[in-house]
């Protein structure tokens, strides 16, 4: 699984961090998403899919 983020779209809702804290974080100064791991292991795949699905700004893209 390959994950990419688009920081310019992100609205800092934090839903991705709530879904998969091992893969996403937020910048302290404005809450914008930071990608911790662009190739998460298989056991996190469901959480990462969940994160992409709940992101209100469609800022997370997944390639399998």
């Amino acid at each position, binding site marked *: 699984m390959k994950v990419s983020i688009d920081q310019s779209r992100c*609205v*800092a809702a*934090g839903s991705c961090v*709530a*879904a998969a804290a091992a893969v996403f974080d*937020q910048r302290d100064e*404005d809450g914008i998403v930071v990608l911790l791991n662009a190739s998460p292991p298989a056991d996190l795949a469901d959480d990462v899919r969940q994160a992409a*699905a*709940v992101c209100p700004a469609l800022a997370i893209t997944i390639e399998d």
Partner: protein
Amino acid sequence: MTEALIEFPSARATGCPFAPPPDQRAVAAARPLSKARIWDGSTHWFVTGHAEQRAILSDPRVSMDEKRPGFPHQNLNMAQTTDHRPPTIFNTDAPEHTRFRRLMTPPFTVKRVAALRPGIQRYTDELIDAMLAGPKPTDLVDALALPLPTLMISEMLGVPYSDHEFFQLHAVVAVDRNATAEEGARSSAELGGYLAQLITERVETPGEGWVSDIAEKVRGGEVTVAEAAQMAVVLLIAGHETSANMIALGTLALLQNPEQLAVFRDSDDPRVTADAVEEMLRYLSIAQHGLRRIATEDIQIGGEVIRAGDGIIVPLPIANWDPQVFPVPERLDLHRQARAHHAFGFGIHQCVGQQLARAELQIVYSTLYRRVPTLALATELDQIEYKTDHFAYGVTALPVTW
């Protein structure tokens, strides 16, 4: 084609205070987009499908600019005051909206909200202590649902503890609809003045919370003190009644469904509590009157074409009760996976305060019923008064005993 037209907003069915209005659910069952006629006689797109709501709310061709002709205003007052309202987070599109949004977001990151949890827990316990020490029956709205959100927002903003009483007093009046317009305006002005002064102090001596985050940006010339104080008042008003309604209306729903209340009371697993709160948000869908938008270009969706300049209404409760997405939506089922709900909206305007609201609700629901296991309604269901005309649905009072 023949379009289904409904009068909006419409009434809920008598008998069930929780279900969205039956006529709205009926048009939604037939098609994902219909038309709705509103208070001024104008007709707008009525987007009910879950997938269609997501698509519309995240589409950059959909605007929140209330000054565009044809915008579906909530009511006459909103329509008449459009020209007097400055640009805010609520009526701007990207990139103007992006600036407001990024000035507001710092205290709402998952990490910063986690740090607020012990404080929220303490306030919750103190308010419950005070309630249990007082007479019964009592009104849960006054005892817990209203004061907790203001305390929580004081904490988030970084209002010093010594000023909490002053802040609490004016915050309650500012959002109390039983207060006169004059009283409300005076309290809002008091709060605005107070917050402007606090922000100015924090420019000199940094401290805690959002006022300190914003003070740093005032120092850097990114925002004025007046604009910052206005944003703080917006946070207070947006976060206060919404959370209060979730606490009181949610308690009513749980008292009607004791086996569901037991999930909060008996579970020690934070994941179970977190999922349960998502289901409460879905089931209650308190943002009841439809988000308002306007198309800036033609948009093809759900077999229809929304034309540039058409008004759009997005009734969140209807997608949250879409049986294709949430089977048997009328069942409050705290173990269901409800995270795809639209209770906080969707797209770039999705609720800024959602992580804070979640933390608060997780703490309140799992503390109240554990500490007061005999909590019971002290009135009949049909004696309860509901806030049917407000942005956020709720109860005006909830008499309880134990």
